[in-house]
């Protein structure tokens, strides 16, 4: 074996990795979650900016809510931020932020600078809750109904169009103001 074989060996290893990556990579447009129709994992995490308080998702039981996974390190989260602010202004459904693998200070600074669309932000430093939700990359947004079941998952930046088509449409009429 000579050193000239090395490049092709390294490449094939990488190709194998990419293969696994593609196989795992769900289709973004029709991405389904194993959780769809199943109870949403319980989140119990410190609240961003106030470590003495704990956010417990059980508190939201009985009403629909939306959770958005984000991080200051995530480029696309910036892109969707404007949309989230607009959504928050409609005030139709609680928007919970799951701040994923982030730095507390950076996350708080982000919210101060760009505006805070979330009714509460849970700080998921270890990424445990994100794993429970099967998050594959930020941003992701989940719709959880009044029975605590995951009804929809959106991967990638939120847009007004997706919001209206997939999220608002899932709100029961009674929940509308």
């Amino acid at each position: 074996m000579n050193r000239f074989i090395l490049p092709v060996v390294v490449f094939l290893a990488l190709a194998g990795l990419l293969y696994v990556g593609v196989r795992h990579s769900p289709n973004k447009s029709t991405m389904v979650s194993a959780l769809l129709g199943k109870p949403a994992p319980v989140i119990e995490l410190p609240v961003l900016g106030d470590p003495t308080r704990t956010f417990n998702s059980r508190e939201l039981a009985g009403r629909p809510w939306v959770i958005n996974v984000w991080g200051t390190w995530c480029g696309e989260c910036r892109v969707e931020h404007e949309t989230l602010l607009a959504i928050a202004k409609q005030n139709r459904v609680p928007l919970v932020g799951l701040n994923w693998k982030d730095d507390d200070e950076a996350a708080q600074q982000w919210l101060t600078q760009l505006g805070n669309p979330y009714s509460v932000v849970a700080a998921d430093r270890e990424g445990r809750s994100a794993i429970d939700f099967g998050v594959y990359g930020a941003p992701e947004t989940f719709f959880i109904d009044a029975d605590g079941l995951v009804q929809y998952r959106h991967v990638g930046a939120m847009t007004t169009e997706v919001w209206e088509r997939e999220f608002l449409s899932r709100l029961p009429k009674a929940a509308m103001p």
Partner: protein
Amino acid sequence: MIPELGQFALVLALLLSGAQAYFGLWGAHRANPRFMAVVRPAVAGHFVLVSTAMAVLIYAFVNFDFSVLYVASNSNSALPTFYRVAALWGAHEGSLLLWGWILALWTLAVAMFSRNLPPSFASRVIGVLGIVSFCFLLFTLYTSNPFERLPVEQIPADGRDLNPVLQDPALAIHPPLLYTGYVGFAVAFAFACAAMLEGKLDQAWARWTRPWTTLAWCFLSVGIALGSWWAYYELGWGGYWFWDPVENASFMPWLVGTALIHSLAVTEKRGLFKSWTLLLAILAFSLSLLGTFLVRSGVLVSVHSFAADPERGMFILAFLVLMIGGALTLYSWRAPLLKSPAGFDGISREAFLLYNNIALVLAALVVFIGTLAPLVNDALGMQSISVGPGWFTRTFPFIALALVVLVSIGIHSAWKRGKLSDSRRRLGIGLVVALVVGLAISLGAYGPGKWLSIIGVVLGVWVIVSSLFDPIDRLRRRLSLSRAVIGMTIAHLGLGVCVIAISTVESYTIERDVALGAGETVALGRYAYRFDSLQPIEGPNYDGVRAQVTVLRDGKPLTVLHPEKRNYWVQRSTMTEAGIHSRWNMDLFAALGEDLQGGRWSVRAQLRPLIDYVWLAAGLMALGGGIAASDRRYRARQAAEAAATANTGTAEAT
């Protein structure tokens, strides 16, 4: 009917590229001149057909043919004509068609300018390009047909509009330039494969390959710079580089391409580094393909990936394995046969170019690791970790600065023998000037900043001074300057300017995010931004607000900025248009954040010193590359060389 013509043209082009590959490679292998004679007409026909497909799609866009799915998804009747044409590459399918067309264009250029090359070699080069074309067109037709029609009952009255992010002049021309660079490396790749197939790689080979590689590199430089400039004024937070996977995807081939250009120089001048040059040529194109894979397959989420689909990812992966795996297998078999004639000293120019190559490849590796780490973790089922910008800012600047030091020293070294004592005076003068000027700029003009930035400014000045010694010396001795030397000098000046600019902007940017109401002011050093008023605006396919922000210097009005917030109707998305006033030494930047109600807005106010020089530097590098690629020796001596090599070529074949 007309869109079907486009699809038909693509199918014919696919068949012709198959013929081009078969007759090019097999004809050269069997030394069959009649086979090889088919190659050039096939290339011409291929180009005409792909151009037809392009023209058909543009026609569909300009004439609002919403029965074509791609047009309906990416255009709208309110979209201005310019963007209706640019919408062609606004999404996946059209981007691929553009990729294919640019490849056809490069292949046509190679076919036209390779008549002086040995026929079997030229035939192999074009044959390899034929394989690339074939795979790409197959991919386009099989997974991403831009001419797909909608059933009659589903034809919309109006289109869904071009992604508003892309409705911008710089971004409209950014993809074609970027692709021209990416695809241009296919030519270097084909030259490398042809040399391996021939089992022969000499200095003439390096001379043929160099101008093509340099030219591709120039396009890539400008393409990357345009993308960065766009992100700066359009994304609205004033940064110019985000280590985003898609940016990295274009930056990696650039780094390796830079290494390739320099390695080719050694192969041409001294006949050394043959197998290394081959490897870099394969690598540069591989990274271009990988870039396409990353952007299009959806394995990595990014600001720029607008469409993603695992089926496409699988196809591109198969394509990658075929092209890169094939080339690297060929490499493992043929590269050991290449012998380098001579050795070189540890501080000769060859050695410094080797060190530079190592630094550049290391830089590319760092970017590579940072870009793919999330994927690796994902594949291994580990916790998904985000490497984030931290990884890049902790590693990349150090490699870059080491590279800059190597450039400044290596530029004085001589070929073959290593004696830096000859250039000790130049090294000394250069360093002293760099220290004085660099410290004067960073500390004198801007005051204390990050130490890394101060070092960066000094080193940047050092590169500039170092690269000027030789040309000035030649001019003083009334020697002529070849285009190669002029080009190299300009490109190295560009590097110096780039390092100075990035160091300065990273350290001395002043930014404030504040809430402002009418008449309120925010201070930024000597400057102050006053938020005057807000007016509603309406464009062809959007409405929004435009603010008037007066910039004051020492209390006196200097200029007025007009940052905008636009709501695009069809896709209902909000875009930020920053208000920027460029001065010779800094940008005054203002962007609107969110409406805080009651007439107050959050405003992002920034002073970014020297930022425009980052893009200017990229322009200088590209200009230098262009001048170097037009050097006389690539044209004048080619004919004679080719005649000589052609003789030996036929002798071997028989």
